[in-house]
C-alpha cells in the first residue's frame, strides 16, 4: 500500500488537540474547577446547581437563626426578670399578710407592689429592634397599658397569634409566645393577681392578702413553666445550627467532588501535554527535510 507522503496535516491536527488539552488543563488549574461550562460534565453541572442552592439555603437558615436567637435571648432574660419581680411581689404579700402591721406599713408595701407592677408592665412591653416581643403579631402595638376600666387595672392590646419561621428543610419553629399566653393567660393572669394583692393590702384584709399571694404564686409558676418554650426553642436552634454547619461542610465537600479539580492529576496532564506538544513540534521540524532530490547529483 502506498504511504501518505505528507504527514504534516496529521501532525498539525495532533498539535491542535494537544494544545486544546493544555488549554483545558490550564483553565482547570487556574480556576480550581473541573466543570467550567455545563458540557464539561453535564451531570456534575446539574449537581452543582443543586449543591449551590442547598448551600445557599443552609447559609440563609444560619442567618435566620442568628436573627431569631437575638430576640429569643432577649425574651428569655426578660422573663427571668419577670420571675424575680414576681418573687419580690410574693415576699411583699407575705409581709403584708402579717396582722401586726399598721395601716401605714401596709400602704408602704402596697406602694412597693405598685412599683413592682410598673416594672412588670415595662418588662412585658419588651421591644426588640423596635418591635414588641410579647404582643403576638401586633408587634407595633404596646401590648400592656394601664387601664382603670379593666378588672386587673391593665389591658392587653396585643393579639394571640404566633409566627413560625422555616430554619431548615421541612423544619420550622414557632418564634414567639404572645403575652396572652404568658402574663395574662386566663386563670393565671399576673396583673389580676397583683391587682387583687393591692386591693387587699389597701383594705387590710389579711385573709384576702393570703389568697392574693396564692394567685401571684400561681402566676409565678405558670410563667416559670411557660418560659421553658424559649429555652427549648433556643436549644433547638442551637442543635439546628450545629446540623447546618456540618451540612454546609458536607455540601462544600460534595461541591469539590462534583466540580473541583484534581490538582495532581491536572498538573500531570499538563506536563504530559507539554511534553507531547514539544515532541510533536520536534517531529514536525523533521518532516520532509530530505527527499531523493537531495541525493541526485
Amino acid at each position, binding site marked *: 500500500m502506498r504511504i501518505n*507522503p505528507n504527514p504534516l496535516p496529521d501532525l498539525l491536527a495532533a498539535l491542535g488537540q494537544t494544545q486544546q488539552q493544555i488549554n483545558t488543563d490550564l483553565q482547570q488549574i487556574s480556576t480550581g474547577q473541573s466543570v467550567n461550562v455545563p458540557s*464539561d460534565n453535564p451531570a456534575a453541572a446539574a449537581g452543582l446547581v443543586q449543591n449551590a442552592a442547598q448551600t445557599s439555603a443552609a447559609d*440563609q437558615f444560619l442567618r435566620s437563626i442568628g436573627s431569631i436567637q437575638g430576640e429569643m435571648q432577649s425574651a428569655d432574660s426578660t422573663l427571668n426578670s419577670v420571675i424575680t419581680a414576681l418573687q419580690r411581689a410574693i415576699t411583699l404579700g407575705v409581709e403584708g399578710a402579717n396582722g401586726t402591721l399598721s395601716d401605714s406599713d401596709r400602704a408602704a408595701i402596697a406602694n412597693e407592689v405598685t412599683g413592682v407592677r410598673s416594672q412588670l408592665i415595662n418588662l412585658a412591653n419588651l421591644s426588640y429592634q423596635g418591635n414588641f416581643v410579647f404582643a403576638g403579631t401586633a408587634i407595633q402595638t404596646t401590648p400592656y397599658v394601664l387601664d382603670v376600666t379593666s378588672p386587673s387595672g391593665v389591658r392587653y392590646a396585643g393579639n394571640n397569634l404566633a409566627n413560625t419561621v422555616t430554619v431548615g428543610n421541612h423544619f420550622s419553629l414557632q418564634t414567639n409566645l404572645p403575652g396572652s399566653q404568658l402574663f395574662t393567660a386566663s386563670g393565671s393572669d399576673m396583673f389580676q393577681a397583683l391587682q387583687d394583692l393591692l386591693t387587699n393590702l389597701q383594705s387590710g384584709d389579711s385573709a384576702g392578702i393570703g389568697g392574693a399571694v396564692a394567685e401571684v404564686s400561681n402566676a409565678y409558676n405558670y410563667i416559670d413553666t411557660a418560659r421553658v418554650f424559649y429555652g427549648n426553642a433556643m436549644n433547638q436552634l442551637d442543635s439546628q445550627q450545629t446540623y447546618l454547619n456540618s451540612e454546609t461542610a458536607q455540601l462544600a465537600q460534595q461541591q469539590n467532588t462534583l466540580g473541583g479539580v484534581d490538582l495532581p492529576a491536572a498538573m500531570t496532564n499538563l506536563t504530559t501535554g507539554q511534553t507531547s506538544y514539544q515532541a510533536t513540534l520536534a517531529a514536525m521540524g523533521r518532516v520532509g527535510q530530505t527527499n531523493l532530490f537531495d541525493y541526485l547529483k
Partner: protein
Amino acid sequence: MSGLNASLATALSGLTAEQGALQATTNNVANVNTPGYSREVPDLVSSDPIVVDPLTLGTGVTLKSIDSIRDPILESRIQQETQTQGQSSALASALSQTQVNFTSGTGDIGTAISNFFNSVNQLSTSPADLSLRQGVLTAAGNLASSFNVAANNLTAQRSSLDGSVEQAVGQINQLTTQIAQLNGQIANLQNVGQSAGTFVDQRTQLIDQLSALVDVSVIPTDNTLTLTTANGTPLVAGHQSFQLSTQLDPSGTQHIFAQGSDITSALVSGQLGGLLQARDQQLPALQTQLDTLAAGLATAVNTVQTGGYDLNGNPTGATDSKGNPQTPVTFFKFDAPPATGAAASLSVAITDPAKIAASSDGTVGSNGNAEAMYGLSNRALIQGQSPTDYYSGLVFNLGNDAASANAEQSASSLVLQQLNDQRSSISGVSLDQEAANMVQYQNAYAASAQVITAINDMMYAAINMTTLTG
C-alpha cells in the same frame, strides 16, 4: 517499412514519450503543495506494430494520456463526512456560546432564584422590617434581570445565527456557480477526448467546500455531474447552477428558498444544517424552558402575594378591606402564557416594599404569607419540579447537548482526518517517487538519444559507403 529511418522514428517516439512523462513529473513536483491536487501518472503504451512479412516490428512508444489518480468512492465518503463535520462544528460552537449564560457563578438564574428565596426567608424572621422588605425587592429585581439577560442573549444569538445562515447561503451560491462553470469546461475537454484532471481536482475541492456548508448529493452523469441537497433540491445540473435565496418570515428569521419553495426544514447537514438546528430547534427549546420556568415561578409567587396583607394591613387580593373589588397587588409582571417571552418580559411589579404581602392575617407582625412564599422554593411548581430542580434539569440538558455536539465534532474530525490520509496516500504527490520517476525518464531519454546517435553513425557509414564505391 523497416530500416534505419524506421528505427530513427521509433527512437524519436521514445524521446517524445519520455519528455511527456517528465512533464507529468514536473507538474506533480510543482503542485506538491496544491490543496486537492491529485498526482498525475503518464500512461505509456507501445505503438501499434507493423508487419513486414515475416517480421512483426515494433514502432516505439506513445504517451496515450496523463491520468490523475483518485478514488471516487473515497471522495464521496470525504464529502459526506465533511457535511457531518460542518453540521456538528456549527452546532457545537453555537451551544458553547449559549452555555456561558447557564454557567454557575454570580448572576446566573440558579443563584438568583436562591437569593430571592433567601431574602424571603430573612424577611420571615422580621416581617415588618422595611430594609428586609427592600432586600426582597432587590433580590426579585436581580432574579428578573437574570431571566431577562439569559433570554435576551438567546435572542441575540439567534439573530447572529440568522446572519450566519444568510452568509452561508451566499457562499453556497458562489460555490455552485463555480462548480457549474467547471462542469462546462470539463465536459468540453472530455467531449474531445482530453483529460480534464486539473479541472476535476478543482471541482472536487469546491464540492468539498460545498459539503462543509450544506448536505450535498453528487450524482455523476455523462462527462459531468449533478449536485442536489439531500432532499433532492437541485443545486447544479451540468453547466447550470440553481441559486438559493433567503427570505424573512413574519417572526424575523431567514428562511431558505430554492426555486420558490421553502427548504429550510429539509436542510439537516453541513454548516447550514448545524446553524439551522441551533437557531430553529436548540435555542427555541431552551427559550421555551426559560419561559416555562419564569412563568411558573412568577405565577406561584403572585398567587401567594395576592393571598395576604401588606405592611399596612390591607389585603393584596382582588377585594379590599371593605370587600370592594380592587386590582390585586401582584409581585411579578410578565407576558403570561400562551404569550411567549415570559423570561424576557419578567419584571417586579412592586416598587413600595410595604406592598409585599408578608402577613397572612392583616397583623403587622405576621409572617405567615412570607413563610408560604418561602415554601415555594421546595414546591413542585413547574412540570412537577421545584424551580431549582427544573433549572438544574435545564442546565443538564444544555450541557448534554453541547457535550454530544462536541463529541460528534471530534469524532467526525478524526474520521475526516483518516479519510484525508487515505486520499493523500492515493492521490498525494511523493517527492521521492517523483525523483525516482524523473531519474527513470531521464535515463530512458538518454538511452533513446544514444540510439539516435548510433543510428546516425550507421546512416553516416551507409552514406560514406556509397561515396567510396561511386
